[in-house]
């Protein structure tokens, strides 16, 4: 793909776009009349077209996938958002919705398209403690919802790891999860209604089929912004529990830890979180400021958290400890107080950042497998990475079977990049072969398009394309994401750009 401007070397894949998008050739500058129209809607300062300022918008948190937007537009409210979408629709210019850019699938990469950033739409419009709901704009940071609800003894349950930065609009687009969705469910389970701006700029309120219609909220959630842009979301709140307590169980074998996961759930215990950290991750975390005092000769650590009444939580965790010991746990630690609980979580939540000590780049996988396959799969994944001469660090939502094997590499080493891609493919195929899926919470974006055929046949893909075409006939709204284009049965993974 030629750069057009020579400013950067475009390296996104040669994924063909529908014809209407091809008319707006990648990296063509934003037409002057369109720029003026956008400025009239949002104000001069909030239409960014300068190449140096656009560098910050080239990727989401998956920084190995980059593309060059032709502009970034930052509406401040619903009316401006509608106006922006109408201008772009009228000019047939493709666009990509973006929240805080914390996604891990390249879903907010806008190569040759306009980025619509909803990060300025940060108003909490209505907290309704009686109905236990809150109405928010899409740019509200996820953790801020719980903060707003806290004075009423309420909280928002989904807790993506990037909760301090990610926004509800992005959460809706990707149907975000997090450590606590084992009991509480993912974003879609906590949405009451949405307002979305359709690709032609029409606002429409969506509900959950309570009137006998279809669950259109469910359809849009996890749609990766390919069907429209979220302008408002009403989400459900839940009471803050009386007690929350965590336990750390340390194992000398991954297989024992994996079996303990299934046994805990089989006991009828329902932790809110059940996370696993592997040996490599323990080592790197313990060498960092986030050390939780875990012996580095341990093969795996489980973090188990329960909530409820104080007596009930202690009884549940006592039973969890028994199950862990019966599966060979060498040590079980119950957090004595809130400080210790947070320290246990630091080891899990800061693991990703700590990986930077091991390698400059990380390829994060997000497959989900049946829980009973966990132990066997973890060993098989280790074998794959060893065979490719790579380093692996895993920490993941074991209770959900949601694996995050992190392949460590250096993008400057072309051969290593090839091996990472090959290992990633093998891991994904292995997970799907057990009955699993290719993504549990990060989404498809650009990153996993090539794997869609592992979980969908031609007829299922065609049906999904028809939905997309029915709502976005001009293929303007994040049109190159999630669904492989027709005729591309062997989509290639986007190339990693050498920056």
């Amino acid at each position: 793909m030629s750069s057009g401007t020579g400013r950067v070397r475009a390296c996104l894949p040669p994924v063909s776009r529908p014809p209407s998008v091809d008319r707006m050739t990648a990296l063509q500058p934003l037409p002057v009349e369109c720029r003026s129209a956008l400025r009239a809607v949002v104000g001069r300062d909030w239409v960014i077209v300068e190449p140096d300022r656009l560098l910050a918008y080239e990727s989401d948190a998956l920084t190995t996938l980059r593309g060059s937007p032709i502009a970034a537009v930052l509406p401040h409210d619903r009316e401006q958002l509608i106006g922006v979408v109408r201008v772009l629709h009228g000019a047939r210019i493709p666009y990509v919705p973006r929240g805080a850019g914390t996604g891990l699938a390249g879903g907010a990469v806008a190569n040759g398209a306009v980025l619509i950033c909803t990060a300025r739409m940060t108003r909490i419009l209505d907290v309704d403690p009686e109905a236990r709901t809150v109405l928010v704009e899409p740019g509200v940071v996820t953790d801020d919802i719980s903060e707003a609800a806290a004075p009423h003894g309420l909280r928002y349950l989904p807790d993506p790891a990037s909760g301090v930065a990610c926004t509800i609009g992005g959460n809706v687009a990707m149907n975000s999860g997090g450590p606590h969705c084992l009991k509480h469910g993912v974003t879609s389970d906590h949405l009451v209604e949405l307002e979305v701006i359709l690709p032609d700029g029409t606002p429409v309120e969506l509900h959950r089929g309570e009137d006998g219609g279809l669950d259109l909220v469910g359809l849009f959630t996890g749609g990766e912004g390919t069907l429209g842009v979220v302008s408002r979301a009403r989400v459900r709140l839940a009471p803050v529990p009386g007690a929350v307590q965590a336990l750390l169980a340390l194992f000398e074998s991954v297989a024992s830890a994996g079996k303990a996961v299934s046994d805990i759930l089989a006991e009828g215990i329902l932790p809110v979180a059940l996370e696993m950290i592997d040996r490599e991750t323990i080592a790197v975390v313990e060498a960092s400021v986030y050390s939780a005092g875990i012996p580095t000769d341990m093969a795996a650590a489980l973090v188990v958290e329960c909530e409820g009444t104080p007596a009930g939580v202690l009884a549940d965790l006592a039973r969890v400890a028994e199950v862990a010991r019966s599966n060979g746990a060498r040590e079980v630690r119950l957090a004595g107080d809130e400080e210790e609980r947070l320290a246990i979580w630091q080891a899990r939540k800061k693991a990703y950042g700590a990986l930077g000590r091991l390698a400059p780049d990380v390829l994060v996988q997000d497959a989900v497998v049946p829980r009973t396959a966990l132990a066997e799969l973890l060993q098989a994944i280790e074998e794959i990475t060893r065979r490719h001469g790579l380093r692996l660090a895993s920490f993941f939502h074991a209770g959900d079977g949601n694996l995050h094997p992190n392949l460590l590499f250096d993008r400057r080493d072309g051969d290593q990049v090839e091996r990472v891609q090959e290992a990633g493919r093998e891991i994904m195929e292995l997970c799907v072969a057990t009955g699993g899926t290719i993504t549990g919470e990060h989404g498809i974006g650009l990153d996993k398009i090539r794997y869609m055929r592992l979980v969908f046949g031609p007829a299922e893909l065609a049906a999904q394309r028809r939905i997309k075409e029915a709502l976005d006939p001009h293929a303007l709204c994040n049109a190159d994401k999630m669904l492989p284009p027709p005729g591309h049965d062997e989509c290639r993974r986007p190339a990693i750009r050498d920056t």
Partner: protein
Amino acid sequence: MVDVFVPNAAGEIPEWIRSLPPGVTPLVTGADPATLELRPGDPGHVLSTARLDELVELRPRDLTITVGAGMRVGRLQEIARAEGLWLAVEGPGEQLSAGGLVSSAAAGSFDASRGPLRRQLLACCEVSPSGDLLRWGRPVVKNVAGYDLPRLMCGSRGRLGVLTELTFRLWPRQPVRRTYRLEAEESTAHAAAALATADAGDPDAATWRWSATGGEELTLTLLGNEAAIQSRERDLSRWAESLGIEVTEEAEAEFRGRGENGSGREAGGGAFKVPGRPQRSSSSFVFRLSTKRDYLAAILERFTAHLEAETAGFEAYPTGGVAVVWLQGDEPANRRAAPRWLHSAAVPLAVRIAVERGGPEEHAAVLTRRAPGERDLEERVVAALGGWDRHWLADYL
């Protein structure tokens, strides 16, 4: 002459669908066709999934079960119970087939604490209206690959095709399950209303029932370990005492016997004082009301002021903001009056109404409240999936 097709396997369905005359929408049911009571105006082509009732796969340690769409939900629960598991569906949906349960997205008393049906359905297979065999979702508990078609199937009322196989999330049975009956001198409606707004310790399930012949009852269910239950029970008692309500623990066997096998219990029948769920019958129809938790309180108050002969029963799940109303449909006057009454009670309170059992006429009547934008969007999605153009409702499912 009605064309009734009862396939033995999903693979037989595409050919039958492709053989339908153009423009014909079949009636798809999970019921035994011999029990169907077709109404004038019903389609002349009927497909029953009753024989697709096999257990396809049970993975107890993965907490999933895959069954044919014709399996009765009661049977599914029996299979799960033998493994110490359960499908978190307790309510009118227990009377349906698995396919009917999904098609109607029937509400239940555990929706607020365990999530509604759309959270329990992980994957499904269907034959589309164009005769394609499609598989949506995977048998794992998290999955965000592609559009969430399993959620779209929940409540689609058969418009998107014939469901043939379903994979559900199962939950481990917790060590203790305890149910309490709340009784007051006059009515427990105010307690049910207060439950929707006040902090009564958030029970795992709450159900307020009223029937024309059996009176009323309010029951709360707690799940957990013994220590947790005892502590929550104390909170519950304190809350009830403040409302002047007496709390009695209900024997578990007594409680389980009522709803779990999906048979329901005759109103006021047997040795139990509490009313049961009205039986399915072709002469009654059912509305589901959904609203904000706190608005349900007002609905309950209005309802108790309107308890009239045409109402066969009322079942509300106060913590979920949902109520189900059974109306006697054998009186033509009631059929006409019911939507009017529901609207007068519901519209000022932003209640959304769905027909769970009834005919296309009732359905059309309640859909008139829908915003045009959403209605148009739904039609575009249905058309994109080649969907059928009429709703065949849960009384056939």
